[in-house]
C-alpha cells in the first residue's frame, strides 16, 4: 500500500547531524483531534504527506471510555478509537518524538532529538495536562497519589484496586464523580472531597447539584463539601491517609486527583511568532491560530463561545472530533467543509442510575431570560429561554433525552414555542419535531417557489398523530391558507430582503433529509424550481439568528455566513474589527466559492 514517496518521509535517524525532513501536513499529538484531522486530510488529499509527531506511547484511544476501562467493562484493545492499523492503511506516518519549538517564519518544527521537520500546514493538537494537586501539599509524592488523566494512570489504578479498601477522590467536576462511581462499583469505601458548596457550581444549580449528590450518597459515597486536602500522610512511602482542611483525618490507601485540566499551550509559547493564547490557543471558527499556516484543535484550542463571547477550550470528546475533522479539511485547503459551526457546549453522561445532560447556558442569571424548572417523574429539568428560543437546557433523570437534538435546537435557534412543555417534562420527541419543521419548510418552499423563511418562523402544527387521509386534507387546506396569507401585501414588505438573499437560495433543509427514511419524500422533480443547482448540503444557509445570546453580546454572525455578509455591507468597520485577531486571513469570506462545493460533503458518510 505504501508507495515510494511515502518511504522517503521518515528516513532512519542520523545521529549527531541535524537533518531536515519535510511533510505537507504535520500534526502534533495523536489524540482524537490529531488522528481525526489526519484521516480527514488523507480522505480529501490522497497525495499529501501526512505526519503525526507524538510522544504518546499508545495509539489513539477513546478517552471518555477510560471510565468504563477503570471498571473492567472494556479491555485495552477495545479502547482504540480507530481500528488497529488505521494509520498504516491511511499512510499516516507517526514519528515518536516531542516537538520543542515552532519556527513559524521558516515553517519547520524542532523535535526533541534536534531534528528539524518542515511543514506546509501545522496542527497543534497537544491536548491538555491535568492540574493535579497543588505543589505545596505535603505528601503529594507518596505512592498511591494518582492524577487520573492518561491511559497509564488508569492502568496504574487498575493494578492497585486489589489492595484498596478506602479511597479519596478530589475534585468537583464530572471527571471526579465518574471516578467516584467507578470506585463504588468495586465496593471501595469512597470519600469525595469537593472544594465548593455544590457540585459543578458553574453548570448545575443548587437543586440539581443536590439531586446528583444525593444520588452519589445513595450509591454509598461519603461526600465532603467545602473540603480540601491539607496534607497526605504516608507510611514507609505509601499513602496511609489524608488530612483535610476541616482537621479531619481520613484513612485511605489511594488518593485520586480529578481536579480538572489545563490546555497544554507550551508550544504556543515556544513559537517564534507570538501566538495568541490564554486558557488555550485561541482559534477562529475555522481553527486558525493567530499564526499563518498553524491550526489548533482539541483540548488545546480555545474557541469563542457563541453565547458568552469568551474564548474557552472545550475539553470534550465530541468537540475534539468535530474540530479534528474541520482542521483536517482546512489543512488541505478545503475551507468550504469547515462551515459547520461548533455551537454551544454540550455534555451528557450517566452517573450510575442518573442521566445528566447540560446544553448551553442553563444557569445564566441574565434578567432577560425566562427560567422554567420541572421536577416531575423524579427528575429535574431546567430550561433558560430567551423570547421563544432555548438558551440552556439541563436535565437529570432516569432517561437521557435526545441530547444532540436539543443542542441543535439551541444552535439553530429554532422556536420552541410549541414544545416548551414537552421539553420541560422531558418527553420531547425531537426527531419528529425537527423533521416536521423541515417538511413544513420544504412544503412552503415548493409552494411559494422561493427561499423559505427561516425555520423559526415556520408554523409548526402540532403533529404527534399518525397521518390519515382526512387529516392530510386538513393540513393541505391549512397550508393553502398559509400560502394565501404569505402572498398577502404584508409579505411584500419583506421583498427587498428576499431579493437580496435570492442568489443564495438554497434548500431550507439538507438534501439528505429528502429520503424515504425521514419521511420527507417529495415525489416531484426539483429541477424545475431552481435551475441554479444549489441544492447543496447547505447546512441551512438561510439567514438565521445565531444562538440566543445573553447581553452584552450581540447575536453573533455564525462563522461569517450570510449574517456576516449583510453586516459587512452595513458596518464594514465592525466586521473588520471582529477579524483583527486573524489579520492575515483573507478578509473576503469564502462564501461564494465554498457553497457550491459543499455538495461534496454529502459524500462523506
Amino acid at each position, binding site marked *: 500500500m505504501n508507495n515510494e514517496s511515502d518511504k522517503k518521509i521518515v528516513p532512519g535517524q542520523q545521529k549527531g547531524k541535524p537533518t531536515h525532513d519535510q511533510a505537507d501536513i504535520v500534526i502534533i499529538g495523536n489524540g482524537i483531534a490529531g488522528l481525526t484531522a489526519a484521516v480527514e486530510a488523507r480522505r480529501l488529499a490522497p497525495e499529501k504527506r501526512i505526519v503525526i509527531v507524538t510522544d504518546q506511547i499508545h495509539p489513539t484511544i477513546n478517552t471518555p471510555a477510560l471510565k468504563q476501562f477503570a471498571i473492567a467493562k472494556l479491555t485495552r484493545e477495545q479502547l482504540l478509537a480507530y481500528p488497529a492499523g488505521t494509520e498504516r492503511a491511511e499512510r499516516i506516518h507517526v514519528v515518536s518524538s516531542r516537538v520543542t519549538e515552532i519556527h513559524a517564519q521558516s515553517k519547520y518544527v524542532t523535535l526533541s532529538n534536534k531534528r528539524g521537520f518542515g511543514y506546509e500546514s501545522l496542527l497543534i493538537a497537544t491536548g491538555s495536562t491535568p492540574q493535579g494537586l497543588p505543589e505545596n501539599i505535603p505528601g503529594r509524592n507518596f505512592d498511591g497519589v494518582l492524577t487520573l488523566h492518561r491511559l497509564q494512570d488508569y492502568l496504574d489504578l487498575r493494578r492497585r484496586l486489589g489492595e484498596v479498601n478506602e479511597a479519596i477522590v478530589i475534585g468537583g467536576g464530572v471527571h471526579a464523580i465518574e471516578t467516584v462511581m467507578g470506585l463504588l462499583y468495586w465496593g471501595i469505601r469512597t470519600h469525595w472531597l469537593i472544594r465548593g458548596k455544590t457540585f459543578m457550581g458553574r453548570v448545575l444549580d443548587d437543586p440539581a447539584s443536590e439531586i446528583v449528590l444525593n444520588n452519589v450518597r445513595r450509591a454509598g459515597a461519603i461526600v465532603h463539601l467545602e473540603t480540601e486536602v491539607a496534607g497526605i500522610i504516608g507510611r514507609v512511602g505509601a499513602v496511609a491517609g489524608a488530612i483535610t482542611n476541616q482537621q479531619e483525618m481520613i484513612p485511605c490507601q489511594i488518593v485520586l486527583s480529578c481536579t480538572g485540566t489545563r490546555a497544554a499551550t507550551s508550544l504556543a509559547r515556544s513559537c517564534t511568532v507570538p501566538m495568541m493564547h490564554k486558557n488555550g490557543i485561541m482559534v477562529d471558527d475555522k481553527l486558525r491560530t493567530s499564526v499563518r499556516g498553524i491550526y489548533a484543535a482539541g483540548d488545546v484550542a480555545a474557541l469563542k463561545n457563541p453565547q458568552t463571547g469568551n474564548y474557552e477550550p472545550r475539553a470534550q470528546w465530541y468537540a475534539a472530533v468535530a474540530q479534528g475533522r474541520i482542521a483536517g479539511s482546512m489543512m488541505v485547503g478545503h475551507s468550504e467543509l469547515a462551515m459547520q459551526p461548533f455551537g454551544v457546549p454540550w455534555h451528557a453522561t450517566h452517573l450510575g442510575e442518573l442521566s445528566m*445532560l447540560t446544553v448551553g447556558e442553563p444557569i445564566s442569571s441574565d434578567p432577560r431570560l425566562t427560567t422554567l424548572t420541572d421536577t416531575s417523574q423524579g427528575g429535574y429539568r431546567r430550561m433558560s429561554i430567551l423570547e421563544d428560543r432555548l438558551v440552556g437546557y439541563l436535565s437529570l433523570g432516569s432517561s437521557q433525552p435526545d441530547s*444532540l437534538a436539543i443542542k441543535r435546537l439551541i444552535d439553530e435557534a429554532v422556536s420552541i414555542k410549541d414544545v416548551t412543555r414537552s421539553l420541560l417534562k422531558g418527553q420531547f420527541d425531537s426527531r419528529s419535531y425537527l423533521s416536521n419543521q423541515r417538511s413544513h419548510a420544504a412544503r412552503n418552499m415548493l409552494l411559494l417557489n422561493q427561499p423559505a423563511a427561516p425555520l423559526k418562523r415556520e408554523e409548526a402544527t402540532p403533529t404527534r398523530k399518525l397521518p390519515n387521509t382526512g387529516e*392530510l386534507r386538513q393540513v393541505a387546506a391549512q397550508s393553502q391558507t398559509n400560502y394565501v396569507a404569505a402572498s398577502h401585501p404584508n409579505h411584500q414588505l419583506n421583498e427587498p430582503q428576499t431579493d437580496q438573499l435570492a442568489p443564495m437560495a438554497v434548500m431550507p433543509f439538507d438534501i439528505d433529509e429528502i429520503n424515504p427514511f425521514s419521511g420527507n419524500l417529495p415525489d416531484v422533480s426539483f429541477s424545475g424550481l431552481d435551475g441554479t443547482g444549489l441544492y447543496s448540503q447547505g447546512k441551512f444557509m438561510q439567514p438565521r439568528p445565531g444562538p440566543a445570546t445573553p447581553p452584552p453580546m450581540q447575536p453573533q454572525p455564525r462563522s461569517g455566513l450570510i449574517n456576516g455578509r449583510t453586516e459587512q455591507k452595513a458596518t464594514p468597520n465592525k466586521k473588520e474589527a471582529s477579524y483583527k485577531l486573524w489579520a492575515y486571513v483573507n478578509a473576503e469570506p469564502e462564501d461564494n466559492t465554498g457553497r457550491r462545493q459543499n455538495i461534496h460533503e454529502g459524500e462523506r458518510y
Partner: protein
Amino acid sequence: MLRMLKPNAIILHKTRPQVGQEIQACIGCNECILACPAVAEPITIDMLNRETLSGSISAPIARFARACYQCGACVAPCPVGLHRDAMMLWLKVRLLSMGAEE
C-alpha cells in the same frame, strides 16, 4: 400539488448528517454492544463506527447489521444519549446499497 409531500410522515430514521454527528459524538464506551441481544460475535465499536460512516463493510459487521432487528436496547444505556438504532439502520442502508453495486 399539495399531496406531493407527506406532512405527517412517520419518522423512522435520523438523516445522514445527523447520523454522522452521532457517530462523532460516540465515546466508544461499548455500552450499546453490551446491551445488544443480536450481536453474536465480537464487534468492536471502532470498527462499527468507522464502517457505518464510510468505506467497505467487513463480514462480521455486515452479519451484525443483518442480525440487528432494531429493538432499541442500545439506546437507553448510551451515556451520551445517542441513537445506535438509527446508526444501525443507516448501516443497513449502506449495506443494501453496496450490495446493489456489486
